[in-house]
């Protein structure tokens, strides 16, 4: 890769394009042998059937605006106010160059040569989708990451020669929907509840064939909206029920059942879509005479769409030949941006309801070409490029709370892959921008990451269920590494957990919301405290009972309240350690015990799941066990406790208990399996 990449591309393309003299001679002969125009239609010989020639005329005339009257359906729905439901982000959360550190992560090895199209926050980390190199070239696949820095393959979504272009998380955080196409060219959506198991659903297209692509998906309270496009072919019969400039949109409430919807206007171009608190927005351009004018459409449910709202340019005159290139909805503000073209500067418009728009600023001549505009709890983030030559592109990230004033967060040579595919942020303030084979990871410094009560209601839920933490300090005072206080949250997400004060064991009830925590009942054992933890017992308990907010920064959990602050470290091996990788893999989805030495009947055993400190055999006649992930892949399983009520014992469960409790290590096996090893033999876990 060199800085003159585009020049090399240009030179190479021109060299390859140079036609041999014989081809030009053949064309001259062909020109001389064209059929008589008076006998039009009879001599459509060669490869084009007559229907195709007719199609050519239709498409060309439609496309260059020479007067063919395409059916133009009058909009039937008035502008739909798009309200917001969440409060504005607290200024203390606003991203700035000072509070955010950016790291470029190369994905090549972790993805085994694959390609990450898009990322989304999910559960305790992120899920990414893209194309893998196995089991064949271009297989749609999914990966997961706790922090954006390390990625583990979790699923093959579709057979080779498929493609996944985007992914979104449902408003409730529980469902992922990825979009793309299969090897048979069908346009698809895939849903998943865990990033591991994916269920396919087809998005209907006007005709079959490879010319349709879904490329953007957004999710909101009204479900999912997908934007796609098709490219007209001269040789194919033109779909009778659509016109060439009608964008493809699909809507779904659950990601499984999809409806193809249309904005009831022809001759429009949709460049971007967004979800707001109560609806959807589409931005693009509307054909206005011989030119294009930037326009916005709104919908409450994704099915009925408003008429186009043309956006004002300078002096109230609509810009010519521009389009809304990106759009994003925040809690109380919606922003749309256009890129500059020869005739007009780039613009920024804002709206509070999606129906009334005002021009709030011009983007300067040096402003980047907008690629992604996203609202995050830290404000709007705009990712774009400056420069015309790939090797010299500068990636520019800017943040704004109001769209009028922008703070440049970062300007650096564009990462490998060049083109940002998606931007995702989690509750800890980590920002991921995917570039195919690399990621840019932005992390907020701890001092500014602590959420305030108001802002935390906006944060996506970082799933604390099943996590275990060991206290490192209480109200600024370091605690002993020997028998420190610890906390474990219920692995099923129920509002309770258990812990240790350094002296006493306790159980607790807690309401955990996005960034907020309220401790309810607390049942404390009575112990005779003489250990090293006795001196922090009272301060720990006081701070824990009064905790009001929680925040995550990497492996650190901070609880804050009126009686102090507790900092706890995740009770797992550090990130990057094989033991941590083992934990992250095992905690994704469900596993089946495929084989264990001398044990039969495993197929009837329900799946198992893993938390930080638990291994659970699901279902009736299942089991629970204590678990500890160690450095380097060490694994200690103990107290395998079968649910024997009504289950009998004439099977391999006692033997399996013995084998499991002897496990000492774990690591990756063939074909995505995990191998747990010990003196009693190997246990193979598979999906």
């Amino acid at each position, binding site marked *: *890769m060199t800085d003159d*990449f*585009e020049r*090399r*591309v240009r030179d*190479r*393309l021109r060299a*390859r*394009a*140079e*036609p*041999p003299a014989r*081809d*030009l001679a053949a*064309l*001259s002969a*062909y*020109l*001389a042998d*064209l*059929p008589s*125009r*008076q006998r039009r239609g009879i001599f459509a010989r*060669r*490869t084009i059937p007559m229907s*195709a*020639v007719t199609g*050519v*005329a239709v498409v*060309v005339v439609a*496309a*260059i605006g*020479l*007067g063919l009257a395409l059916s133009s359906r009058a909009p039937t729905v008035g502008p739909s106010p798009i309200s917001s439901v969440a409060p504005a982000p607290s200024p203390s959360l606003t991203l700035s160059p000072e509070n955010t550190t950016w790291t470029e992560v190369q994905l090549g090895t972790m993805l085994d*040569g694959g390609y990450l199209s898009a990322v989304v926050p999910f559960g305790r980390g992120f899920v990414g989708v893209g194309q893998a190199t196995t089991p064949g*070239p271009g297989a749609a696949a999914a990966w997961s990451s706790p922090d954006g820095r390390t990625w583990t393959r979790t699923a093959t979504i579709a057979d080779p020669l498929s493609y996944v272009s985007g992914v979104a998380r449902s408003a409730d955080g529980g469902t992922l929907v990825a979009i793309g196409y299969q090897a048979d060219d069908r346009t698809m959506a895939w849903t998943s509840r865990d990033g591991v198991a994916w269920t396919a659903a087809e998005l209907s297209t006007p005709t079959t064939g490879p*010319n349709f692509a879904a490329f953007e998906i957004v999710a909101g309270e009204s479900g999912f909206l997908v934007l796609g496009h098709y*490219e007209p*072919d*001269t*040789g*194919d019969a033109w779909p009778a029920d659509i016109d060439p*400039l009608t964008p493809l949109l699909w809507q779904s409430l659950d990601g499984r059942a999809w409806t193809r919807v249309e904005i009831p206007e022809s001759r429009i*171009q949709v*460049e971007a879509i967004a979800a707001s608190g109560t609806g959807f927005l589409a931005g693009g351009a509307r054909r206005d005479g011989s030119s*294009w004018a930037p326009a916005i459409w709104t919908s409450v449910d994704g099915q009925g769409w408003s008429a186009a709202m043309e956006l004002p340019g300078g002096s109230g005159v609509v810009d010519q*030949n*521009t389009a809304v*290139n990106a759009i994003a909805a925040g809690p109380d503000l919606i922003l749309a941006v256009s*890129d*500059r*073209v*020869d005739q007009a500067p780039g613009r920024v418009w804002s709206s509070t309801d999606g129906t009334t728009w005002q021009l709030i600023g011009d983007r300067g001549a040096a402003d980047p*070409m907008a*690629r992604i505009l996203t609202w995050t709890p830290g404000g709007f983030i705009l990712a774009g490029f400056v420069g015309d030559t790939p090797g010299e592109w500068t990636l520019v990230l800017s943040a704004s709370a109001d769209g009028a004033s922008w703070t440049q967060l970062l300007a650096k040579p564009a990462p490998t*892959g*060049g*083109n940002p595919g998606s931007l995702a942020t989690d509750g800890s303030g980590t920002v991921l921008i995917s570039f*195919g*084979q690399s990621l840019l990871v932005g992390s907020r410094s701890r001092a500014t990451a602590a959420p305030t009560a108001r802002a935390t209601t906006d944060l996506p839920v970082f799933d604390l269920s099943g996590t275990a933490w060991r206290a490192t300090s209480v109200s600024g005072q370091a605690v002993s590494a020997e028998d420190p206080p610890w906390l474990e949250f219920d692995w099923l997400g129920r509002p309770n957990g258990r812990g240790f004060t350094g002296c006493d064991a306790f159980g607790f009830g807690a309401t955990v919301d996005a960034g907020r925590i309220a401790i309810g009942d607390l049942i404390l054992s009575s112990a005779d405290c003489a250990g090293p933890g006795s001196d922090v017992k009272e301060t720990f308990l006081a701070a824990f009972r009064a905790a009001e907010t929680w925040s995550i920064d990497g492996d650190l959990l901070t609880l804050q309240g009126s009686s102090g602050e507790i900092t706890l470290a995740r009770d797992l091996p550090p990130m990057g350690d094989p033991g941590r990788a083992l934990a992250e893999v095992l905690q994704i989805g469900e596993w089946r015990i495929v084989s264990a030495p001398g044990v039969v009947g495993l197929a009837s055993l329900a799946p198992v799941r893993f938390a930080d400190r638990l291994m659970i055999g699901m279902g009736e006649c299942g089991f629970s066990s204590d678990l500890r992930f160690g450095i380097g892949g060490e694994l200690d399983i103990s107290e395998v406790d079968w649910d024997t009520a009504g289950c009998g014992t004439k099977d391999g469960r006692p033997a399996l208990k013995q084998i499991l409790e002897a496990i000492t290590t774990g690591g990756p096996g063939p074909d995505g399996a995990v191998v747990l090893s010990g003196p009693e033999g190997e246990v193979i876990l598979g999906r």
Partner: protein
Amino acid sequence: MEAVLTLAVPSRADLVRAARAGDRDAFGVLVAPDLVAALGTSRLVTGSADDGADAVQDALLSAWQGLDSLRDPQAFPAWFRQHVVRAALRIAKRRRRVVELDVGRSAPDHELDRAIALRQLDRAFDRLEPGDRLILSLRHVWDLPGSEIARLLDVPEGTVKSRVHAALARLRAAYDAEERR
């Protein structure tokens, strides 16, 4: 005494009028300035010399047959390029994308390196979607300005820039992947 030779150059409108009347030579004059670029672009978009030639022939035929729909003779070049674009895309989408490496092993080492580098770039380009190949070809082979590409693809001018940008990014990613093979 100098001889002054005055040639009557037919206007584009004259040529279109003649072509509509069935004058193949006039039609040939109209398309001639674009034939080399049309052939080159079609070869790149379809990924094959034969398919590229077929695409141009298809475009010539469809333009010839569709001359009656051309209202503004001055718009003939852009109108013809539209035929080329459509024909090339149609053929390209019926072909498979992946082209296998075929480097001459008998070449000297330094020549081989260069051939491999070029072939990696070719392979990366050939693996792009037809739409990406088209927009890069229109920009770098046909050397068309953004406004003309916008008209050809019927998209806003601002979109052209972002699509070129995105296509180059995908090409660079594909090229990087080829380098690691």
